[in-house]
C-alpha cells in the first residue's frame, strides 16, 4: 500500500509527524512535488472559483496524486483547543470538499479527524488511522510517540536556527504567513528569494514555540478565534523587537487573514508593516517592486534617515 501526501496546507506544519509515523509503521508514501504551474492549473480547474489560492493549490496537489498511489492522505482538523480555539473552516471541510469534487473518481482517502471539543484528540486520531492501516495498538502507539519526539526535535532545531539568525547584521524582516503559504514554491518562495537577493534576513513567524505564541496572542487580541492565526500574532510580539520590519503574506481571499491582518496593522504600531496578498494571477514583478521599496525604506530608517 502506498500513501500519497499532498504537499500543501497542513503538510508544512505536520510533515515530520506524518512522515515519521508512516515510516515507523513501515508504510510506503510519496509526497507530491513542489507546487508548479501544472499543479496550480489543476487546482484552478477543479476547486471552486471563489476559494482561496491555498485551497486551489491543495486541490492541485490532490489531483496530481490521483492514480499515483493507493490512498490520498487528507486529514481534517476542526478544533485544536477549547471551543474558543478554532481553525479556518477550510480545514474542517477539506475532506468532504475533496470527496465531493472527485466523487466520480471514487478516491480512496486516508484521513484522521482532530476535534478537541468532541474529545477527538490527536492521539485518538492517529490510533484510529493506524488501526485502519492494519497495525496493532502497541505498534501504533510506539510509532506515534517516536513521531511526536521527532516533531518536537525538528521544531526545536528550526527555532534554534532561526534564533541564531536574529543576531545577524543584515536587515531582518519578520514574515507573518501561514506555513503553507510562505513555504510554498509558488506563493512564498519568490518572496523569500527576493528578500535574500536584497541582502535581508527573513525571520518566519511560523517558526516559534506555538504554545508560548498562543498565550502571547491573547494579550494582543482577546477574542481572536483561530489557533493558527494566534500563533502568528503571538510570534509578532516574540520577535518584534529583534527585527526591522514586518511583512504580512496572505493568499486571496483568506477569511481569517482578512480580519487578522487588519488588526495587526492597527495594533502593532512600532514597526513598519506591509501587507502582501497573493492571488496566483499576477507575475512576481509587482511583488518584487513592493519588496524593494519596503527594503529601501527600512534601510534608510536603519541608517537614521527616516524619522517618524
Amino acid at each position: 500500500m502506498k500513501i500519497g501526501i499532498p504537499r500543501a496546507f497542513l503538510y508544512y506544519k505536520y510533515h515530520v509527524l506524518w512522515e515519521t509515523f508512516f515510516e515507523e509503521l513501515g508504510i510506503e508514501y510519496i509526497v507530491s512535488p513542489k507546487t508548479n504551474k501544472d499543479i496550480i492549473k489543476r487546482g484552478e480547474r477543479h476547486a471552486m472559483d471563489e476559494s482561496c489560492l491555498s485551497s486551489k493549490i491543495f486541490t492541485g496537489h490532490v489531483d496530481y496524486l490521483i492514480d499515483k498511489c493507493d490512498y490520498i492522505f487528507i486529514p481534517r482538523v476542526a478544533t485544536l483547543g477549547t471551543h474558543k480555539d478554532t481553525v479556518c473552516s477550510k480545514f474542517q471541510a477539506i475532506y468532504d470538499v475533496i470527496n465531493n469534487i472527485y466523487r466520480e473518481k471514487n478516491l480512496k482517502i486516508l484521513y484522521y479527524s482532530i476535534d478537541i471539543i468532541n474529545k477527538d484528540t490527536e492521539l485518538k486520531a492517529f490510533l484510529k488511522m493506524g488501526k485502519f492501516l492494519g497495525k496493532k495498538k502497541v505498534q501504533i502507539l510506539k510509532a506515534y510517540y517516536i513521531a511526536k519526539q521527532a516533531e518536537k526535535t525538528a521544531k526545536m532545531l528550526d527555532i534554534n536556527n532561526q534564533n541564531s539568525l536574529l543576531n545577524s547584521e543584515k536587515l531582518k524582516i519578520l514574515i507573518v504567513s501561514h506555513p503553507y503559504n510562505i513555504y510554498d514554491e509558488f506563493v512564498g518562495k519568490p518572496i523569500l528569494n527576493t528578500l535574500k537577493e536584497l541582502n535581508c534576513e527573513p525571520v518566519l513567524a511560523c517558526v516559534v514555540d506555538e504554545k508560548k505564541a498562543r498565550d502571547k496572542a491573547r494579550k494582543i487580541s482577546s477574542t481572536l478565534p483561530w489557533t493558527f492565526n494566534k500563533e502568528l500574532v503571538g510570534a509578532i510580539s516574540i520577535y518584534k523587537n529583534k527585527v526591522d520590519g514586518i511583512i504580512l503574506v496572505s493568499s486571496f481571499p483568506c477569511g481569517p487573514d482578512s480580519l487578522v491582518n487588519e488588526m495587526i496593522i492597527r495594533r502593532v504600531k512600532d514597526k513598519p508593516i506591509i501587507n502582501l496578498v497573493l492571488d496566483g494571477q499576477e507575475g512576481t514583478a509587482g511583488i518584487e517592486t513592493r519588496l524593494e521599496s519596503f527594503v529601501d525604506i527600512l534601510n534608510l530608517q536603519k541608517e537614521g534617515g527616516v524619522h517618524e
Partner: protein
Amino acid sequence: MSNIKVNFPRFGSYNVAVRHIIVNGCGVDYIDSPPITKKTLEIGAKYSPDFVCTPFKYQLGGYLEAIEAGANTLIQVGGACRLNYYGELHEQILKDLGYNVKFVNMANADFAKPLTFYEEFKKITPNLNIKKITSAVLLAVKMVEAIDKVEDYIRANVGFEKEEGSFDKLHKDFLEDLKEINDKKELNLLFKLYMSKFKKLEVARPKNPLRVGIVGEYYTIMDEYSNHYMEKELAKKGIVIERWMNVSNSVFHNYVKEIKQSIKHYAKYDMGATSMYTINKALDYAKEGFDGIIHVKSFGCTPEIDTMPVLQRISEDYKIPIIYFSFDTQTSDVGINTRIEAFYDMIMMRKEDKVK
C-alpha cells in the same frame, strides 16, 4: 429617556426583539440603524479591510450611521465563523476613527458559562436586574419565533397577492405593533390577530405554482438589502419561496444530530458554520421535488463556498437546477435580475416539459 442609547446591527426583521431586550430588559434606550442604503455600504467598505466578507462592511456602515443618529453603546454578537471576530475589529476601527462609544462584544462571553452573558449585558448598564433581563430575553425569543412564522407564511403566499403590496404593508404593521408588546399573553394575541389578518388577504394561487428553496449564508440570506430583495423579485414572478434558514430554526432548535444523519451520503463531517444547514435543506428541497434552489452568500464566505461542490452533486443526483449568487460591494441589481430572469425561464420550461 436614558442617556444610554444602544444600537444593534440591522438583521432581518429581528431588531424589534433586540429592542425589547434593551428597552424592557436593560431599561435603557434603543436606537435602530437607519435603513440600509448604498451609502451605508459605501462608508462601511471605506473603513473595512478589502476582502473581508460583506456583512462586516454593512454592519460597520450601520454602526457609523447609528452613531450619527445618537447611539453611544454598540452591541456585536459572536458566531461560528469570521463573525466571531467582527466585534473586536469593529471596535478597533471605530476607536481609530475617534469615536468615543461603548462597545459590548458578546464574543467575550462563553457558551459553556451562561453567566458570562449576564456579565456582558451588565456592561450595557450596571443597574441590570437579572430577573428583568431574563424575562425580556425569554419574551424576545418568543417574538423571534412569531416573526419567523409570519414570514414563512408571507414567503409562501406573497407571490400571489391580489392587491400589490398588501402583504408588505401588513408585515410592517405587525413589526410596528410588536414594539408595544409587554408579555407573552399580549404576544400570543397579537400573533393570532395578525395571522388571521394575513389569511384574509386575498391571493390567487394557481394550482401548481413554481417552488424555489433558498439556502446559504446566515446574514446575506436573511438581510433583504444584502441579497438585493431577492425574495421579493422571485415572488413577483409568482413563485412559492421556502427558506428554512432563520433564527428560530438555526439557533433555538437543535437539529444537528438529525441533520448529520440525513446528509451523511454527501458529507461525513460538519464543514463549519451554516454549511450543514445549507446542505441539508438543499437535499430536502431536492427530495421534495422543488423546481429549483438558490444558493446565496457574501463573496469569499469559506463555509458556504465549501458547500458548493456538495450542492453540485445534489443537483446531479436529483436533477434539480441550482443557481449560485455571491454578493459583494460591486454587485449590481441589473446583474442579479438578469440571472434570476434566466433561472426563472429555465425552471419554467422544465416544468412545462414535465407536464407534457
